[in-house]
């Protein structure tokens, strides 16, 4: 079973992001970048499937600028067999990415495509679902457990208030939730091996897709500054303030 794992280059989760002065976006100058944590969980799941003998090949793919190669190399060090970068100078949006991936899937014919459920920068949580719609593949989102059966997958999903278990036919799309697995770190020998693994760079034109954004970002605002707290003297005063000032209880 061939497994395709789309991954996104994002600002490292530990970085405190700053909004550009003109509110056009987030300042990425000299900011540490990383593989989106949910995508890393997707890579880990694919590599585990390969280690368990269920998957034959793991392909990491990214759609974005040339420096996404750094994150693809990380995926290769974590156990992916090869990588593909669909290189573009435009800042791609979920629909464009899903179209590019759908065109790539036509060539690759992966039986399983594992996405992170969302990226920690845009928080869109759309690409996996759009890809499933474009390709007509079955999908199970927000997976916390994946079991491979004969021609199908059993996927446990995290839903409000509990768990739901689905059986879906292959080929299928899965998006990963936080608790699916705990990604490993790469060993030094694997970092060295990753430098020799194939990483193909293609263009959106090679796939016959147009990545021109369809949604325009008007403004990006930082969260409001938290105001200083106050110390209350009594429980009664606390209850009063929660009721009448914060209005969080009635």
């Amino acid at each position, binding site marked *: 079973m061939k497994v395709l794992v789309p991954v996104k280059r994002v600002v490292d989760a530990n970085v405190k992001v700053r909004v550009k002065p003109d509110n056009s976006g987030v300042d990425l100058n000299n900011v540490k970048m990383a593989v989106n944590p949910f995508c890393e969980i997707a890579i880990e799941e694919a590599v585990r499937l390969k280690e368990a003998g269920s998957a034959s090949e793991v392909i990491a793919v990214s759609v974005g600028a040339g420096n996404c190669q*750094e994150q693809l190399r990380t995926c290769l060090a974590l156990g992916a067999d090869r990588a593909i970068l669909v290189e573009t100078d435009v800042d791609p949006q979920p629909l464009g990415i899903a179209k590019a991936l759908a065109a790539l899937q036509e060539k690759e014919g992966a039986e399983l495509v594992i996405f992170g459920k969302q990226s920690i920068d845009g928080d869109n949580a759309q690409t996996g679902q759009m890809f499933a719609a474009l390709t007509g593949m079955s999908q199970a989102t927000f997976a916390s457990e994946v079991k491979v059966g004969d021609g199908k997958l059993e996927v446990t999903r995290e839903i409000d208030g509990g768990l739901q278990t689905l059986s879906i036919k292959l080929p299928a799309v899965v998006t990963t939730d936080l608790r699916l697995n705990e990604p490993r*770190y790469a*060993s*030094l020998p694997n970092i060295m091996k*990753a430098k020799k693994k194939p990483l193909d760079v293609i263009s959106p034109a090679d796939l016959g897709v147009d990545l021109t954004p369809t949604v325009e970002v008007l403004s990006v605002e930082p969260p409001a500054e938290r105001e200083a707290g106050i110390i209350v003297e009594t429980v009664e005063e606390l209850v009063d303030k929660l009721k009448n000032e914060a209005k969080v209880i009635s």
Partner: protein
Amino acid sequence: MASFEYGMDYADIRDQVARICAEYPGSYWQELDDKAEYPHAFVDALTQSGYLAALIPEEYGGAGLPIRAASVILETIHANGCSAAACHAQMYTMGTVLRHGSAEQKQKYLPAIASGALRLQAFGVTEPTTGSDTTQLKTRAVKQGDQYVVNGQKIWTSRAHQSDLMLLLARTTPVDQVTKRTQGLSTFLVDLREVRGNGCEIRSIPTMINHNTTEVFFDDMAIPADSLVGEEGNGFRNILSGMNAERVLIASEALGDGRYFLDKGVAYANERVVFGNPIGSNQGIAFPLAQAYAQLEAAELMIRKAAALYDAGEDCGEAANIAKYLASEAAWKAADETFQTYGGFAFAKEYQIERKWREVRLWRTAPISNNMVLNFVCQNVLGLPRSY
């Protein structure tokens, strides 16, 4: 002249090493410090992930990377609040075997050192009566048939209890029978598993930091003649290039420590509010942190220069010594100013400041005292008369 690039070199290695470190928080190190125990779990994680084998050539199972990569690994470990002191020697002590050992010795030991099956992280050089005056060391190895018999004593032999092998420097020709006092010394690879309790006794030395250091006694310790590494009488030369590597790497650890402290100090100066303002708004707090930062930046440049020279195969003695000096002083500055910034809380163990502060003091003293570095610069760089 060797050149080097600036910027985040080996970003992939930095990322993954930082991830390992995240699993060993301050509380892990604090507990070990309280119990004076060796960080087995951390060392196992670094061993299994191959980072300690960075410098061993690929043909022997290592990664075959330049010293700059090892420098980045150690800096990252320390910048993330962990300590590589417990295992850094496993990275570079093998260098003497690699450069001067026989083909058989390399084949026998290096793959096992690379995999971590064998630990070679003890280096018996310093003696209680001779200190930095290495060529006057008293430990004698006398050849008798197909073995050497060793008598003497070493001190500050770190991690001898956690080593399978020890690199030993001993005198094979008495000092009054050689023309230069650097001659007549020889290096041996001693299998501690064979000799412990059998001519070799290792005693722990309790110290102000959890550093697992020992003193080692040799009483008619017999070792096979093929324990000799390189030619007999050339031991001092054999260990010199290894000492430059060690200085570059220790400087990298000190730099990492300095970065750790500065991060903590700046964060605390920003969040701690006294008299209605963050204490970092007072220049009495802020300037020392800025000075420490400037010193760390300078030290980093010198470390990169020394590593570039070493990796280019050029003489790096001056740069390696100066890198060690600048980094250890800058790290101490960052540690002490952060200690001051933390006020009384610096003394509370749970903040990790007092423990790291004790640890970082070491780099001004070991592996060589900073005064000896200055002596080196005076005589060998500036051409001043020898003072001792």
